[in-house]
């Protein structure tokens, strides 16, 4: 007879809220009449995510291991869950924007219709809005919430798949440039499956070496013996699977293509939330399970950080599409985040965990805002993503250009923006742990990357407008809220970061 595991519903309420909302969303999709689906689905999704956000705040201070040891609810879990739920709610708002695209949505009505077929051309002009994205996004958010709480490799794997599969789907649902979108979805799926296989193989090897998939048991096994070849190889493959999700070079090759092809709100969602979830899992895996074997993985992370920063910064230089540019920016930022991971220190006494978590908040907010601005600038064929189309935007649409400049400055890490505070925190953490060469490389990479962020600002303000340039759409309420929140937060976290830094610092203790 198998006993039912103990289950702390209160501690898991954020997760349950989001997944519950997702399940109801599926039912709504099946049974509710078509014309009420959109408001109901948006309301449901917002209730789920905002509810989860509030729940994490109410749970602050909880430290327990539940579900038979499979899930850990502690400071980092709750901090990252709050981040994911908050950024998720903002992404849902971007999904719900209806006034920018003439067809009232960024998503295709019927994704299964072959692109370019007569039926597809027919649907281009329809005012029907597709609402399946909301439950799908909620499942992805649920998977992310589970991912950062997973205290068990199998649960971690399940969470990885729960978050990934809906993302593969909604990546292919762009209303415009459908073939590009579908190509992105297939690429993401194939490479994601490839990476998942590595993760799963690593899981099997670690189980073989230690006899358990629980992080606590693995830690005991690692502490007891120096770890055999099996264990080390398994660790390497697990890390590869997670680095893929975090788009760390050299496992980043999907990032530019998928970011460019996916509908922009989905790209924003992926860039902000997936990154948070992936780093949550990396931190937990490395420090809770393999903290005692730090000497094995530290050089690995060290090298990955350097490669990622250099690849992201250098490749970003020659990009002409803004979404691809932000994709390489995401690769470079993944490298900066890894410097924070290094800064956690062997004994977990460094400030790296708090710094990384703070960085995730700032990067998520800023990148979400930047992608939100991208949805505003449009030409006849959807979003105008080519750099040349942004020339002279400052003269034509000063507010849009100013907000975009703010986000770009934050991404470049200019003081008085959130990006600077975040970078400062992770670099300091790395230096405190003696990783100053890493910090030097990070500073150089920041300088290189600043070039392509600032180039956009120069284009917007110091170039003459192109003749038949793009129009700047007037955003509806949802996008306006997103822009207001992200811009305010980007400024506020740059000028007065104390409160959030403090919170991250107090949350930065793992429960084993």
């Amino acid at each position, binding site marked *: 007879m198998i006993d039912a595991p103990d289950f702390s519903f209160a501690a898991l309420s954020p997760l349950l809220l989001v997944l519950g909302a997702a399940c109801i969303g599926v039912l709504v999709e099946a049974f509710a009449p078509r014309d009420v689906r959109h408001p109901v689905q948006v309301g449901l999704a917002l209730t789920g995510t905002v509810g989860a956000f509030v729940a994490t705040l109410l749970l602050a201070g909880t430290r327990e291991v539940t579900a038979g040891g499979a899930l850990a609810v502690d400071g980092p879990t709750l901090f990252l869950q709050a981040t994911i739920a908050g950024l998720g709610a903002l992404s849902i708002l971007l999904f719900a924007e209806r006034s920018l695209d003439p067809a009232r949505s960024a998503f295709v009505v019927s994704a299964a219709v072959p692109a370019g077929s007569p039926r597809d051309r027919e649907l281009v002009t329809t005012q029907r809005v597709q609402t399946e994205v909301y439950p799908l996004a909620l499942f992805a958010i649920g998977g992310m919430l589970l991912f950062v709480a997973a205290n068990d490799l199998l649960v971690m794997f399940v969470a990885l798949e729960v978050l990934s599969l809906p993302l593969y789907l909604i990546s292919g649902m762009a209303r415009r440039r459908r073939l590009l979108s579908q190509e992105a979805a*297939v*690429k993401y799926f*194939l*490479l994601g499956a*490839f*990476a998942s296989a*590595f993760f799963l193989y690593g899981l099997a090897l670690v189980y073989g070496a230690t006899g358990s998939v629980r992080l606590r048991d693995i830690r005991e096994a690692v502490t007891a013996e120096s*770890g055999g*070849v099996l264990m*080390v*190889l398994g*660790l*390497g*493959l697990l*890390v*590869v699977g997670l680095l*893929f999700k975090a788009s760390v070079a*050299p*496992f980043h*090759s*999907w990032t*530019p*293509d998928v970011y460019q092809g996916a509908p922009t709100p989905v790209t924003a969602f992926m860039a902000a939330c997936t990154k948070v979830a992936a780093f949550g899992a990396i931190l937990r895996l490395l420090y809770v399970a393999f903290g005692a074997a730090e*000497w*094995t*993985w530290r*050089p*690995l992370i060290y*090298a990955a950080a350097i490669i990622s920063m250099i*690849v992201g910064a*250098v*490749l*970003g*230089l*020659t990009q002409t599409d803004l979404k691809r540019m932000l994709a390489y920016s995401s690769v470079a930022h993944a490298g900066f985040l890894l410097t924070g991971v290094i800064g956690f220190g062997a004994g977990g006494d460094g400030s790296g965990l708090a710094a990384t978590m703070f960085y995730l908040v700032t990067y998520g907010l800023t990148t979400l805002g930047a992608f939100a601005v991208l949805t505003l600038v449009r030409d006849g064929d959807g979003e105008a993503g080519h750099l040349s189309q942004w020339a002279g935007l400052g003269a034509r649409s000063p507010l849009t250009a100013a907000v975009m400049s703010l986000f770009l400055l934050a991404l470049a890490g200019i003081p008085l923006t959130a990006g600077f505070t975040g970078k400062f925190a992770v670099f300091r953490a790395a230096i405190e742990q003696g990783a100053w060469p890493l910090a030097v490389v990070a500073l150089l990479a920041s300088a*290189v990357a600043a*070039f392509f962020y600032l180039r956009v600002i120069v284009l917007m303000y110091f170039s003459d407008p192109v003749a038949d340039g793009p129009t700047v759409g007037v955003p509806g309420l949802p996008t306006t809220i997103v822009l207001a929140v992200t811009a305010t937060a980007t400024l506020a976290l740059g000028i007065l970061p104390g409160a959030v830094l403090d919170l991250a610092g107090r949350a930065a203790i793992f429960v084993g």
Partner: protein
Amino acid sequence: MPAEGLLAASWLLIALPLAGAAVLLLGGRRTDRWGHLLGTATVVAAFLLAVACTVQLAGLDGRAADVELFTFIATGELDVTAGLLYDPLSAVFVLLITGVGSLIHVFSIGYMAHDPARRRFFAYLNLFVAAMLLLVLGNSFVALYVGWEGVGLASYLLIAFWYTRPAAATAAKKAFIMNRIGDVGLALAIFVMFAQLGTTSYAGVFGSVGTLAGGTITAIGLLLLLGACGKSGQFPLQAWLPDAMEGPTPVSALIHAATMVTAGVYLIARSAPIYDLTPTARAVILAVGAVTLLIGAIAGCAFDDIKKVLAYSTVSQIGYMFLAVGLGPAGYVAGLAHLLAHGFFKAGLFLGAGSVMHAMDDSVDMRRFGGLAKKLPITFVTFGLGYLALIGFPFLSGYFTKDAIIEAALDRGDVWGWVLGGVAVLGAGLTAFYMTRLMLMTFFGRPRWDDGVHPHEAPTVMTAPMIVLAVGSVAAGALLVSVFPLADWLAPVFGEPAEAAHVVAPALVGLVVTVVMVLGVLTAWLFVGRREVPVTAPVRVSPVTRAARNALYADTVNESLFMRPGQWLTRALVWFDNRGVDGAVNGLAAGLGGSSSRLGRAQTGFVRTYALGMLGGVVMVAGALLAVTAG
């Protein structure tokens, strides 16, 4: 002791003109109509407040009030608290600055009436007054430095007020650059103080300066002196001051005669506790003062530009003040008394020159003046009183204050006392000569002006300040010596005046100086007054005259020693920047761009390539981990 009552509000002294400047500069054209009135009102209000504060100060025990404002910088060991110190020394400067400043603001209302940029002019004047007050009221060397740079900025802006004139723009640059040399000295002195003593406040520095090695104290003293020389136009940094006359005449009167250029004297007097410990630095001050005194007086004899003559006169008179403060405790009060008296009569003389220029269509060439006494009676009388005060006519202000300096020099009792005293007496004779020459060429003789010029007396708004200053020129000396003795007032700062054993009886000194002065006047009459003044300056002149006309070749020396090598250096640096630095930067950018394109080729768009790349990464990871574990 902490300030109470009005003294606690003495920060308003600085805030009022500063607010005036802010309103005028930010308000733009909207303030054009009433801007000059606001600018004048803020300074007059500051003067009234200063009078009230000084009255309160006179009743205080110890006569010093500390006004804590706020913490300016607190980082590591450096803790600079912004605060003011209202003591007798700063009080006399505050009264001079706001008093003369008020009069000159009033004068400027008339003088600048037709200038389209009058508002900007008053804004800069207000800025200057605020900075100058901070300079003398600050309670630390850092506060002094902030004010020091502020007056430098205001001086630069005002010299170049008519910036479309190349001469004005060049003069402003020259003043700024030469002042920077001095400012570097002042900054280094402050750095040394902080490095050695850990503090920059007057109280802290003066309290502990005695613990330093003699060489360090001398270094601080000399660096402070370099700063003082730059600001006060003293040898070897004197060449900018005459050129600064390109600015509007009220600026010359306020900044380049009465107040800013005396900041160097203030700095040395304020740093008396440092100089008391370093006879070497004091000797250098004496040398600087004596040399400058003679250079200024000699150059003043040769120029035909009325403002330049007055400017060299200023250089020379500040030389007297340096000489006095260089004498140490015996001379501080004499130097400051001369400074105050000079502030009155030199401001009056400059305003008189402004009135003459106003009458003569902005001409400054004295060879084109002549016979103006009848046309400009008020100007003539006020200017004449200032002239008598300056040359030390018995019982006018210059007589008392200059004689005091000469007596103090002689009281040293050694050979150097006689040398310095002799130089000062010689300077008095030269002063009498060049000022008499100026008077004769301007106000007496046959009119030599062009046909189109119709000299007329200035309006009341201009003559009234001149009259007030003329009364001050006549009375200041006697007041400061006998009625309100400056020595007693300053006793809390410099100690009780000691009754010196005079080497030469004061009456005899007075007699000798008067005789020399009369000789100077007579010589001037012989050379200038007796004969017709040629309208163009004679070309065939003695080498001495030629040297004096070139201000003893100070500009030539500066150009060949500093300017040309500086230009060569900048050219070399520009070359290196273009070839070396830019080349490296552009090369790096090209390299990064190239590697970006090459790396970008890996992004083929094919999933198989991406998967292969990932596999490569995995093999690397696994290989590295296995190597680490095995090894």
